[in-house]
């Protein structure tokens, strides 16, 4: 049964079917083959149930806030701020890219939005000042992963809903590993720059830095609203998301005057389409999960196929989870991987005593890494489309970054406090 269903999924997926088809086809086949007495109406019931949890409403709200800010000036102001402080140092533009990706991650929850918002303006400038193309491209794709760990994070929202883990706690716990990756990427960038002939950017005066800081002060209010608001108990993550939408509108339409209110319906349409395309997968994933749980496949996969149980020990289970999510995301969209694999592995993680928040951060980190890893990580395809480069050129520089990310995964498993200390401090 497990073989049949995964066979259907893999074949349809590789043939290039829209991703909802492999999910729905496997669901329908599983239902008809094993539960012929159950009406397929249940598939629809599960799909609707899958998209309905009110915590998921945070997803379109964070997408809308990010789209408003990308259409306006927010991302450019953040870029100028970071550059005015570190641009003149060795590897300055590389460090600027990494830091800007992290900062943008703090206002948007998706890696792909970050590739577009930061990569588009910065990559040509890095290449102009002497960085090799493959280094610049790989840095941007991989640094965008940090956006998935730094709150808000769409991956964490979906994981939180599926596993019943507090989204607020997940958000806070993602900050530690996100910053650790940022530091390691900056260190690697500075070291790598010794090999390249790079023209350093001119050093900014303190007056220029002051101006850049003033320009970026209001965009920097986003992390304060999101993290501060949730942590202080003012809002739920969904409400924090809606308040960031309001904040984005006030900034871009009234302070920066880069957008007019008339632009909002157009931006909302694009948000609606992106939301629907993701949510139909969330619904289909929920239906699929329901069928495999009904057939008791998760227990079979865990106990018989993988030979794991509550006695397997922390390291075995943590490494298996890491490997499963990482490999899954090398092929499929992260949301789909989280939806399908979380119900399979979550009970096992609980059984060996893993903190659900730690599991969530580990899962988010793995799907972030997988999305930027060949052969089919979806960020690679975003980069191909955005930068107009071939597949081979885009992946050429990724190995050192993937290596650093995998090292961070090991560190996270060995020292869970990297993620949990902020959570323990806050909650």
């Amino acid at each position, binding site marked *: 049964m497990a073989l049949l269903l995964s066979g259907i999924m893999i074949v349809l997926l590789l043939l*290039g079917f829209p991703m909802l088809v492999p999910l729905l086809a496997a669901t329908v086949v599983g239902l008809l083959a094993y539960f012929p007495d159950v*009406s397929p109406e249940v598939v629809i019931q599960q799909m609707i149930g899958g998209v309905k949890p009110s915590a998921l409403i945070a997803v379109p709200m964070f997408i809308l806030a990010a789209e408003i800010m990308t259409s306006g000036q927010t991302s450019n102001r953040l870029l100028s701020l970071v550059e005015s402080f570190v641009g003149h140092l060795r590897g300055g533009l590389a460090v600027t890219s990494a830091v800007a990706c992290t900062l943008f991650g703090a206002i948007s929850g998706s890696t792909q939005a970050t590739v577009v918002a930061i990569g588009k303006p910065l990559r040509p400038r890095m290449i102009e000042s002497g960085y090799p193309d493959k280094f610049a491209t790989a840095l941007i794709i991989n640094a965008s992963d940090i956006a998935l760990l730094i709150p808000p994070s769409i991956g964490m929202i979906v994981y939180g809903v599926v596993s019943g883990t507090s989204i607020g706690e997940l958000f806070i716990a993602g900050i530690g590993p996100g910053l650790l990756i940022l530091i390691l990427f900056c260190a690697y960038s500075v070291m790598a720059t010794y090999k390249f002939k790079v023209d350093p950017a001119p050093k900014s005066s303190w007056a220029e830095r002051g101006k850049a800081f003033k320009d970026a002060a209001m965009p920097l209010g986003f992390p304060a609203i999101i993290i501060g608001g949730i942590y202080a108990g003012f*809002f739920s993550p969904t409400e924090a998301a809606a308040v960031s939408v*309001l904040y984005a509108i006030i900034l871009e339409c009234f302070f920066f005057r880069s957008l007019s209110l008339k632009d909002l319906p157009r931006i909302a349409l694009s948000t609606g*389409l992106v939301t*629907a395309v993701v949510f*139909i997968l969330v619904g289909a994933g929920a239906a699929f999960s329901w069928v495999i749980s009904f057939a008791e496949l998760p227990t079979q996969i865990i106990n018989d196929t993988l030979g794991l149980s509550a006695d397997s020990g922390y390291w075995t289970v943590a490494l298996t989870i890491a490997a499963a999510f990482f490999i899954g995301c090398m092929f499929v969209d992260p949301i789909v991987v989280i939806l399908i694999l979380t119900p399979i592995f979550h009970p096992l993680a609980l059984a060996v005593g893993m903190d659900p928040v730690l599991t969530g951060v580990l899962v988010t980190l793995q799907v972030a890494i997988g999305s930027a890893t060949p052969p089919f990580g*979806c960020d690679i395809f975003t980069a191909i489309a955005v930068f107009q480069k071939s597949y081979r050129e885009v992946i050429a520089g990724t190995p050192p970054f993937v290596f650093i990310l995998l090292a961070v995964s090991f560190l996270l498993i060995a020292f869970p406090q990297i993620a949990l200390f902020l959570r323990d401090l806050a909650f």
Partner: protein
Amino acid sequence: MTFVEEFVLSGGILVIAALTIANVFCRTFFGFSLAFAEEVSQFLIVLITFVGLSYGASQGRHIRMTAIYDELPQSLKRGLTIFICFFTSALLGYLAWFAFSYSQTVGTLGTVSPVLQLPLRWVYLSAPLGLGLASLQYLLAAIKNLSSHEIYLAYDVPLRREDPVGDGI
């Protein structure tokens, strides 16, 4: 049809944002919550998901993994596209049928939403509607591909030749 779909998607997102913000304001400043806000938002998300399914199909925007597809020669790619469109159309049409019967089942049970007492069947009708229209979109795309030498992702959306995905390998 496209206009209606665009209106629902764009309006739905803006109404959810407005309701959620209004709820935070009422609770913080006036000490009461808008109980219907969350319920309406959930309805709108269901509506956006299924209307967007059909709109996404008509714009050729559903997420696909095209790494292998892009490497195929034009003739094979066209044949595969026709197969994908017919198969997808059939599957979605099949589900649309059960979605309709599900909304009828819910209707017979007379289930209403907890706060607004709105009959859930009206909300759930968006599922057969969206699935049915999406099925139609894929059928149209299949016919278009059959009658043309170019490849179309959707009836009005040709697979762009300048699309960089897969070029240059």
